[in-house]
């Protein structure tokens, strides 16, 4: 059978849970294909992996697709994966008394300049009409620097956000899942060349992936156990991840849906905040050719 290579941005990010579920529930096999999962270190690196020909389908935000097209890497989002920043929170240490407004003139940790967390920080600045210094500290630096007091707040993603609020080390002062208006934060992406050459492969892959989303919604215990195993975290955290992110994911993924273009546009507008100059029209970023038909387990 043909193998589709799935590129995932990080190990402990919900796309990994989706892809792993699809593999374990043999959904790819049911579609008559095989899948090979590769975990990268961030969205940008996943995109580079696809551009280098090491991944066939990846999950990333629209901004990267747009930037890629300007650099000669022609790809499109073929399925809508999420319409919000689920699990992303602006957090301060528990003892801190600071609120969002109080962050004016303070330091806020983000993972990397131009990354998802940076965009959210920039959005906060714009939306709350305050100003603070964004300090890129890398994924591994968010919590240590927050706890050590090097920064007053941090934009933290799941499952870390759930983990440190559960442990009582930090508390949320802004939940981006609800604060930011719905926009297409991430989608499944393939190269145009690949979509043209092997449309069935793409179709089968999205079928399996959305089959996995459906399966996860229907099988809480199995999924929580899987998350706990993948993330190497206690079941309580896994449950939080399940309830607050997995359950919020798009189940249909259809890029032809009426609200899609506006959602993508909003996402690109947000990216502009982060310094993205290479914006292409929304139509060039998406492809409605593959409407996922969730595979039944």
């Amino acid at each position, binding site marked *: 059978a043909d193998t589709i290579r799935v590129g995932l941005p990080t190990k*402990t990010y919900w796309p990994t849970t989706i892809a792993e579920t699809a593999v374990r529930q043999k959904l790819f096999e049911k579609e008559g294909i095989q899948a*090979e999962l590769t*975990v*990268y*270190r961030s969205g940008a690196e996943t995109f580079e992996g696809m551009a*280098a020909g090491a991944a066939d389908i990846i999950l990333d935000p629209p901004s990267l697709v747009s930037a890629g097209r300007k650099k000669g890497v022609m790809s499109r989002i073929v399925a809508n994966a999420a319409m919000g920043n689920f699990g992303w929170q602006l957090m301060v240490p528990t003892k801190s008394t600071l609120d969002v407004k109080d962050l004016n003139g303070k330091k806020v940790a983000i993972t990397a300049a131009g990354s998802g967390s940076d965009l959210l920080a920039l959005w906060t600045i714009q939306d709350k009409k305050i100003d603070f210094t964004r300090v890129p500290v890398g994924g591994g630096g968010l919590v240590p620097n927050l706890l050590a007091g090097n920064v007053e707040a941090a934009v933290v993603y799941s499952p870390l956000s759930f*983990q440190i609020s559960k442990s009582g*080390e930090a508390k949320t002062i802004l939940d981006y899942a609800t604060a930011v208006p719905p926009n297409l934060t991430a989608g499944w992406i393939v190269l145009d060349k690949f979509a043209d050459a092997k449309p069935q492969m793409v179709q089968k892959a999205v079928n399996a992936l959305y089959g996995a989303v459906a399966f996860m919604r229907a099988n809480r215990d199995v999924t929580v156990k899987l998350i706990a195993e993948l993330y190497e975290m206690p079941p309580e955290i896994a449950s939080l991840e399940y309830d607050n992110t997995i359950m919020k994911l798009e189940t249909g993924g259809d890029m032809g849906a009426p609200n899609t273009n506006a959602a993508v546009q909003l996402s690109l507008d947000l990216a502009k905040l982060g310094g993205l100059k290479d914006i292409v029209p929304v139509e060039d970023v998406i492809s409605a050719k593959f409407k996922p038909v969730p595979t039944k387990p």
Partner: protein
Amino acid sequence: MPGTIAVNLARIAIIIAVLALWEVLSRTGIVNLRLLPSASDTFATLGDLLQRAAVRKDLMVTATEVLAAFALAVPFGAVIGFLVAENRYFADVAKPLLFFAFSIPKSIFLPMFILVFGVGFAQKVGFGFFSTIFIVIMSTTTAVESVKTEHLTVARSYGATRLQTAFRVYLPSMLPVLLEALRISMIFNLTGVILAEMYASRDGIGHQIATWGENFQMKQLLAGVVMVAAIAMTFNELVRWVETRCSHWRT
């Protein structure tokens, strides 16, 4: 050698002291337990991790990649380094170029390796090789340059061929410098392979460490670091063993 025992005892004492300090620092809360889990916790975690078949497999994968990259980079680099030192023409051409190559943060080129090798064994070994070869070349060149002229003259007077001069004069005189170079090269090699694994991978201990780091799983992270350090130290000791066997003639 009666001194060896004393030295080893002293070494063990230092290691124990460091571990004790680590334990005390985190237990007494001088540093946050979350930021620096205690030594005992870390080693307990290390034990747990080693129980897992997946982790053991990752270690094997990494070790294989590291060895492969090293086995390729060292002979290649040594030969090039030797040529650079031996042949002035080649040296004048290549030395500055090699030096520039050495001064660039190599991780910039990780995507290119994926471009050429895809994601997998070849890419990781390739990047490990790439990270190591420059330091091997540069160290070999230095080592060669520290050889005494009078010894070369003697060899020349006996009609030693280039190869013979290389193995019978250069090699033994360079040995201390070369072995030191070997240690450093190993460290570069290990770091290179682990970086490649962290960047994009399906397996390998570097991949695990990246995940632990990003999730702020300090115990696992430290245990992983200890694992990697253990691999490097084992190798280090191996080099040291070779060293003591080969340089007994020094006073």
